[in-house]
C-alpha cells in the first residue's frame, strides 16, 4: 500500500487526517504492524528543543530619507554582519554584546524582537554619491522591519555526543558545567522524538520540506553545515519567518564560561507514504546509540569513554567504571513534546500542509575536519627534554643543589617508577631556607597539584594552561604520568620568533 502527499493533504484539508507523534509510533507499529500503521496513521510529528548555536536572522530596515549603505552595524550593542547591501544585515545568535558580553547577544536581540520589544539600531557608513549618509541611530520593533527571516546554517542534529569530564578540574562548556572525575554527564537531543532519527535515509526530508521552526511554519533549505549523515550526525539548514515566531519556542541563553546561544524548537512532520517510512518512525530510544566523550581533553578527537543509548541517558544515570553517574539534558524534552504537539494541532486544524522535497539531501556523506596547513606546533617539539628530578624522600637542601646543577627553576618530584607526584620550585626552596626548614623532606614542601600536559597537545593549549594557572612551567607526561620533559613559558618565546 502507498499513500501520496496529495491524498494526505486532502485529509488535512477536510479534517480527517490522523496524526501520531514519533514517541507513540513504536507501540503503534508493534501493535498493528507496518502495513496496519500505514493504514491508520497519515503523519508522524517530531520535535526537538535545544541549544542551536548555528542560528541567526536576516533583517531589512528600509531606506531612510537620506540613504545609507550600512557597513558597521549594531543591534542593542550586538554587532550584525553588514557585508550585504545596503540596509540588510545578518545577525548571528552567538554574537556577543560589546558591553554586556556573554550576558546579552544575538539570540537575546532575536528573542527581544519576537517578544515585541523595541531594538536599537546603530550603523556607520563611509558615505558615497548614491548613499551619502554616514551614521544612523533608530529604534525598531519586529512589525516595523520589512523582513526578519531566520536562516540557520546548522540545526536539528540527528544525534549528538554526550559529555563528561575525566579530568581533575571542573570545566565550563557548551554542554554545561562538567564536574571533575566524571561526576556528571550531559547530553543533547530528544532521542526518538527528534526529526532526523525518524528519517535517517532522507526519504521525505529534503530541500523544501515544510517544518515547524520557533513557532513559524518554515522550510528545510537543505543539508546543514557539518552535515555528516554517514557518521550518524546529519544536520539541516532551516528557515522561517521571525514575525510568526513565539518566545515559547525561541529562547536566548548563556552557557556560563562559553557564551551566548539560542534554544530553538524545531519539528518536522513525516508523511507516511510507504511501509519503509513507517518502519523508520518506529525507532525507539533503545535503538539510538551515541558516545560519551571526555570534554576534559581539549582536542577535536576527544576520547570516547563508552557507547550509550538515548534510553540510558534519559534514565537519569549511566554507569562509568562501575559507578553510577547522573545524567541531565542540555535540551528540553518537555518542550520537544510541546513542539510535536503544536505541529500536530496545526496539521489537524488544516493550517500545516505536507510537501515533497524539491531536492534530495545526501544521506551518506561524512564531514571533513579542518586540515591545518602546517601551522600546528606540538608540545613535543618545544619541550625541554634535559631535566633533573628529585624524589619526595630527599631533603630540601638536596633539592637546592639539584636546582643549581640543573640550572632550572622547576624540579618535578617523582616516585620509584618515574611518575610525577609533585613539583618544587626555586621559590618553594628559598622559602624553606628562609624559614630554616632546609632539613625537611621534599615531600613536605612540594606542590602536589602539578599541572601536566601531554606531548601531543598543541602549544596553544600549553600557553592557555600556563596563563590560566599563572605558572612558569608545565610538566610533560605520558599516559602513565611518567615525566618526559618540561615546557617552560620562555620556550614559547622561541615560537613567536619562529612565526615572526
Amino acid at each position: 500500500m502507498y499513500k501520496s502527499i496529495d491524498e494526505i493533504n486532502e485529509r488535512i484539508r477536510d479534517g480527517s487526517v490522523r496524526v501520531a507523534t514519533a514517541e507513540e509510533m513504536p507501540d503503534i507499529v508493534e501493535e498493528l504492524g507496518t502495513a496496519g500503521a500505514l493504514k491508520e496513521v497519515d503523519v508522524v510529528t517530531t520535535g526537538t528543543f535545544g541549544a542551536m548555536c548555528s542560528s541567526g536572522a536576516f533583517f531589512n530596515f528600509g531606506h531612510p530619507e537620506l540613504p545609507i549603505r550600512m557597513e558597521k552595524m549594531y543591534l542593542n550593542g550586538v554587532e550584525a554582519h553588514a557585508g550585504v547591501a545596503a540596509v540588510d544585515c545578518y545577525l548571528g545568535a552567538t554574537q556577543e554584546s560589546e558591553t554586556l558580553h556573554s550576558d546579552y547577544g544575538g539570540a537575546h536581540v532575536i528573542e527581544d524582537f519576537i517578544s515585541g520589544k523595541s531594538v536599537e539600531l546603530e550603523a556607520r557608513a563611509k558615505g558615497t554619491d548614491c548613499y551619502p549618509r554616514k551614521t544612523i541611530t533608530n529604534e525598531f520593533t519586529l512589525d516595523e522591519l520589512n523582513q526578519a527571516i531566520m536562516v540557520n546554517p546548522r540545526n536539528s542534529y540527528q544525534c549528538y555526543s554526550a559529555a563528561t569530564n575525566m579530568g581533575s578540574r571542573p570545566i565550563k562548556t557548551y554542554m554545561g558545567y562538567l564536574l571533575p572525575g566524571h561526576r556528571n554527564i550531559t547530553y543533547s537531543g530528544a532521542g526518538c522524538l527528534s526529526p532526523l532519527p525518524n528519517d535517517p535515509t532522507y526519504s521525505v526530508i529534503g530541500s523544501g520540506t515544510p517544518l515547524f521552526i520557533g513557532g513559524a511554519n518554515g522550510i528545510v533549505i537543505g543539508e546543514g553545515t557539518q552535515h555528516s549523515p554517514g557518521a550518524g550526525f546529519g544536520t539541516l539548514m532551516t528557515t522561517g519567518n521571525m514575525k510568526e515566531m513565539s518566545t515559547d519556542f525561541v529562547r536566548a541563553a548563556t552557557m556560563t564560561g562559553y557564551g551566548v546561544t539560542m534554544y530553538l524548537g524545531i519539528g518536522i512532520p513525516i508523511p507516511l507514504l510507504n511501509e519503509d517510512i513507517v518502519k523508520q518512525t518506529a525507532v525507539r530510544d533503545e535503538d539510538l546509540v551515541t558516545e560519551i566523550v571526555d570534554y576534559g581533553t581539549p582536542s577535536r578527537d576527544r576520547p570516547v569513554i563508552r557507547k550509550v543509548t538515548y534510553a540510558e541517558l534519559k534514565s537519569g544515570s549511566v554507569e562509568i567504571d562501575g559507578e553510577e553517574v547522573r545524567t541531565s539534558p542540555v535540551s528540553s524534552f518537555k518542550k520537544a513534546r510541546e513542539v510535536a504537539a503544536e505541529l500536530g494541532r496545526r496539521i489537524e486544524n488544516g493550517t500545516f500542509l505536507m510537501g515533497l522535497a524539491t531536492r534530495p539531501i545526501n544521506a551518506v556523506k561524512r564531514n571533513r575536519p579542518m586540515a591545518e596547513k602546517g601551522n600546528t606546533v606540538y608540545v613535543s617539539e618545544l619541550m625541554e627534554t634535559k631535566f633533573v628530578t628529585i624524589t619526595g624522600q630527599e631533603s630540601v637542601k638536596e633539592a637546592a643543589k639539584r636546582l643549581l646543577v640543573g640550572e632550572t627553576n622547576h624540579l618535578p618530584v617523582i616516585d620509584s617508577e618515574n611518575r610525577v607526584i609533585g613539583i618544587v620550585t626555586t621559590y618553594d626552596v628559598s622559602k624553606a631556607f628562609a624559614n630554616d626548614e632546609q632539613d625537611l623532606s621534599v615531600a613536605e614542601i612540594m606542590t602536589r597539584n602539578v599541572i601536566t600536559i601531554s606531548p601531543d597537545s598543541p602549544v596553544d593549549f600549553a600557553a592557555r594552561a600556563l596563563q590560566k594557572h599563572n605558572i612558569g612551567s608545565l610538566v610533560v607526561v605520558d599516559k602513565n604520568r611518567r615525566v618526559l620533559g618540561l615546557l617552560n613559558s620562555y620556550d614559547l618565546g622561541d615560537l613567536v620568533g619562529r612565526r615572526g
Partner: protein
Amino acid sequence: MKLKVEFDRVGIQEPSIAKAILETGIAANIERAVIDGDEGWTLISVADEETERFIAALSRPGVSIRIQKNAVSHNVTECVDCGLCISICQKKVFSFDEDWKLRVEPERCVLCGRCAEFCPQRALSILK
C-alpha cells in the same frame, strides 16, 4: 530540616554549635560553614522532630537562627525545563517529574549557588 545560623563578632567566639550538640545529644550535620575571625555562617541539618529543641540549645546572644525553607528561587516563566541543573547539583535538589517538568526540592539545598551560575536561562537564583 536545615538551619541557617549566623554568628556576629560576639557569637563567633563561643563553641556554640559544639555546646548545643553536647547538651542535646542531637546528631546535627554541618553541611556548609563559612567562618572566620569576626563573623560567619553555617548550614546545619537536624531531624525535623528535633529542630525546636536544637534551636533552643543553640540560641544565645550573637547567634541568629532561621529555618531555611525556600533557598532556591525557580522562575517558571524563564525555565524551559532543560534539566541541566539536575546533574550539576550533587545535593539532588532538582529532578524531573513524570512529564519531564523540572521539580525543585529547595530543602536539600546547601547554598553552593552552582545551579544559578550555570542555568542557561538564568531561571534559578539562591536566596541566602
